[in-house]
């Protein structure tokens, strides 16, 4: 593992592809929180999620990439949009969206700390080391690991979904205890 200089880093085509994906992703992420229209904010979130999926594709993790597209963009975002449009989705500038300083400052502080921690973790682990080319993960390998070594965590995670389902039913259930209307 040899270290690379910054000049060499810029010579690599893959790094340019990375930047072409990374900068729009960052811009869209920033617009998601700064946009003054709620539907537009969600649509910027779509762009930043698509950028994330593209990053996973670059890392050879095709299954994760298409899961991001299917689950996050295809399901979660769509439910966001339906929820917003069913209740209130004005066109143009929505002045209610911006919060005051008392909310903005802690939020900004939290995101800076989060960014610093992840950046430090990545830098500490890899630094300027060139990562050697590797085989993309095949779906079969991923499935074997998931349903063999990590089968218990996998099942435990499904309890979260079960809890969400029960919660949903409880909220949507007609209340039969009170007087009938």
């Amino acid at each position, binding site marked *: 593992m040899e270290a690379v200089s910054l000049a060499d880093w810029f010579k690599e085509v893959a790094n340019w592809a990375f930047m072409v994906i990374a900068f729009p992703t960052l811009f869209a992420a920033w617009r998601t929180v700064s946009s003054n229209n709620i539907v537009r904010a969600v649509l910027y979130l779509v762009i930043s999620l698509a950028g994330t999926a593209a990053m996973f594709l670059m890392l050879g993790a*095709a299954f994760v990439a*298409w899961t991001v597209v299917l689950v996050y*963009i*295809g399901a979660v975002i769509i439910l966001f949009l339906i929820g917003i449009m069913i209740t209130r989705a004005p066109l143009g500038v929505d002045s209610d969206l911006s919060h005051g300083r008392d909310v903005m400052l802690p939020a900004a502080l939290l995101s800076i700390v989060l960014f610093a921690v992840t950046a430090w973790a990545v830098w500490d682990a890899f630094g300027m080391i060139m990562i050697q080319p590797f085989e993309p993960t095949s*779906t079969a390998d991923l499935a074997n690991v998931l349903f063999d070594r990590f089968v218990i965590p996998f099942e435990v995670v499904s309890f979260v979904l079960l809890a969400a389902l029960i919660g949903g039913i409880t909220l949507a259930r007609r209340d039969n205890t009170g007087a009938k209307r």
Partner: protein
Amino acid sequence: MSFLLELGIKVILMLAVVLTAALVTIYAELKAGSHMQTRIGPYYAGGKWGWAQPLADGAKFIQKEDLAPAKADRTVFGFAPYVVMMSTLAVFAVIPMGPDIVATNLDLGVYFILAISSLSVLGVLMAGWSSANKYSLIGGLRAAAQLIAYELPLVLAVVAVVVQAGTMSMNGIVEAQQATLFTIGGVEVALPYILSGQIIGFTIFMIAAVAELSRIPFDMPIAESELTMGYLTEYSGIRFTMFFLGEYASLVALSAIATTLYLGGYAVPFLPESMENFAGPGIFLIKVSFLVFLIIWIRWTWPRLREDQLQSMAWRWLIPLALFNIALISVFKVVL
């Protein structure tokens, strides 16, 4: 550079094939629909049988002014047709027309199709919201609710195929259908999945596919008598053309997926493997046009479902049936 050249050739070829297929499908709908209503249909354009009618319609639409409502969100309004078109066209990247006649044989073929085609809902919601029109918004919401409801049985039906084939690659699924099922008097017989256990899955897939296309009997999102044209109300000119072409391209896309998953794709029983690259595209297109005709036939002969009937059919019948189908296929897969 050769990579970019290859990519360019593939994209241009695919666009040519898909858009021609969409135009032919529009013509078939005009003609078949007319004959089912004892009319003649398009007759003059192009000289004979009105074959140039879709081209003439297209040329007319492109000449029209590209209007957007004054209060619309123009950026979102403009991008919506591209999102719908992109999600339809990307599907064709993994559909094989022969062992080697495929843009890219992805390891995750079916999963890619499900992921990328779920993006069309996003385009529909964008179109409905940005039009600044209540018909559009209600149409967009109805369309989204319907597409989500019918995406589940579609995905679950596909899962059963993936279980039976043991692969998610589209080429792999076609090859799995060529495996010998049984032998009669020394003749090895291989059957496509529709004849070897997936008849329930195929039925669910086709019902869900017609609903995904928002065609009669599932056309509540653009119910003309109550919503004008649903999320398409404010669209005109080239953007309307894109939605219109995209709709027929996705009709072809879903028929092509069903052909690959259930009808054996480019292969037919007893065709030698050496012939498949040569005869594959023809066989594939014949099967696809049969399914396209089936969907057109349904549109012109069935009454429309009510919104609550439509939702209850998806959630109370198709999804449980699809889950039962997965259990059945899994049991057979392990036992046999």
